[in-house]
């Protein structure tokens, strides 16, 4: 199953994002950002199913939760960065 990763500048923003998405009906999981996604070192991200991306982005924009980047993990395991 394709997965989406949304990275944040701090765990606090990731947590606010997590609550925003869940309240908006988008299931997601808060997790440490895989190292290759985070060029400044440690961070946190939200993982959610592909297909929820546009809903998630609009919810984050509505609640003014800034995020860094969005990555897609395809079913074959390959990863690609999406435009934020």
């Amino acid at each position, binding site marked *: 199953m394709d997965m989406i990763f949304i990275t944040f500048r*701090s765990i*606090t923003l990731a947590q606010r994002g997590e609550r925003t998405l869940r309240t908006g009906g988008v299931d997601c999981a808060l997790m440490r950002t895989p190292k290759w996604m985070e*060029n400044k070192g*440690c961070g946190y991200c939200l993982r959610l199913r592909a297909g929820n991306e546009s809903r998630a982005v609009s919810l984050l924009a509505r609640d003014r939760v800034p995020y860094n980047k969005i990555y897609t993990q395809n079913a074959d395991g390959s990863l690609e960065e999406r435009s934020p």
Partner: protein
Amino acid sequence: MIYLDNGATSFHKPPEVLRAVQEALRTCANPGRGSHRPAMAAAERIYDCREAASRLFGCLPEQVVLTTSGTHGLNMAIRTLVRPGDPVVISGFEHNAVTRPLHALGAQVTVAGRKLFSPEDTLEQMEDALRKRPKALICTHVSNVFGYILPVEQIGWLCRHYGVPWILDAAQSAGSLPLAQADFVAMPGHKGLLGPQGTGLLLCTRPPEPLLYGGTGSASLPPTMPEDLPDRGEAGTLNVPGYAGLTEGLRYLHRTGIHGMARRQQQEVRRAAAGLERLGFTVFSGPCQLGTLSFLPHGDCEEAATKLARKGIALRAGLHCAPLAHESAGTLDTGTLRISYGHDACPSQTQALLTAARVLL
């Protein structure tokens, strides 16, 4: 014991505060430092605290910087806005948590508004001082010695009008009064917010200059502190049990409402002031007064406090770490005896105080 020293710290915390501290000690590791369950549980407790504070004070969770005390927050805010030699305006009722950092920085301090219980004087003097465009105005919301409620809404309006950044010390008002929107609002977690000692909050409209530098669990590669709130102000491991307790204090206040709290405290202050005056003591009371009341016994303040402690009354004597406030009120030589009511203010406390106070006659 009748505890009337809530200006120093609240003593009778809601039971859920104690339970939350214990639970956090049992279940939480280091927040923001891992993805295992105890680390994530700690991160949840920390976010809960920010969220509870943001709900009570009307800001975003990331604008809540967790500090170790009100003093810590004030130091951080002052270091953010004030450079050595900068002109700064303060009220005549500031605590050493404001005056000492300014002294250490070598700021040029103008004291504006020294008349006790006179919002008109406070505003007039502050506006005069603000016309000179100082780098910051720093003031307490409520005097920790006299309970004088400064007219902070109007002070905030003046600061915005003159374009002067404003730091509000809410040490004695947070949890009892609605707070004004300042650039920075500093408060302890262990007084009116009913949390444990070692906790505090700094509400920030912009990232503060760090007082401490170190690990934040975020953006670890650069040698500089992260630019973002709240991480910029939070180097090092956070006091998770403390903030877990503070969360419950904040939730308690949210449930019970702070308006009734202020009214109860003010009723008891008026009752205590009238009773102490009838006993012949000099009492400092007036309009715009919250739950704190200073009075002068006939002899030494410290000896009087000791006598009252033997009668089961816990209050505080001396200068209360605010010599400037005493200078303004003319009590620098004597100090005062201070009664400060808390969330449990009630007539029986006042009655017990007045009965015990006869030992001072």
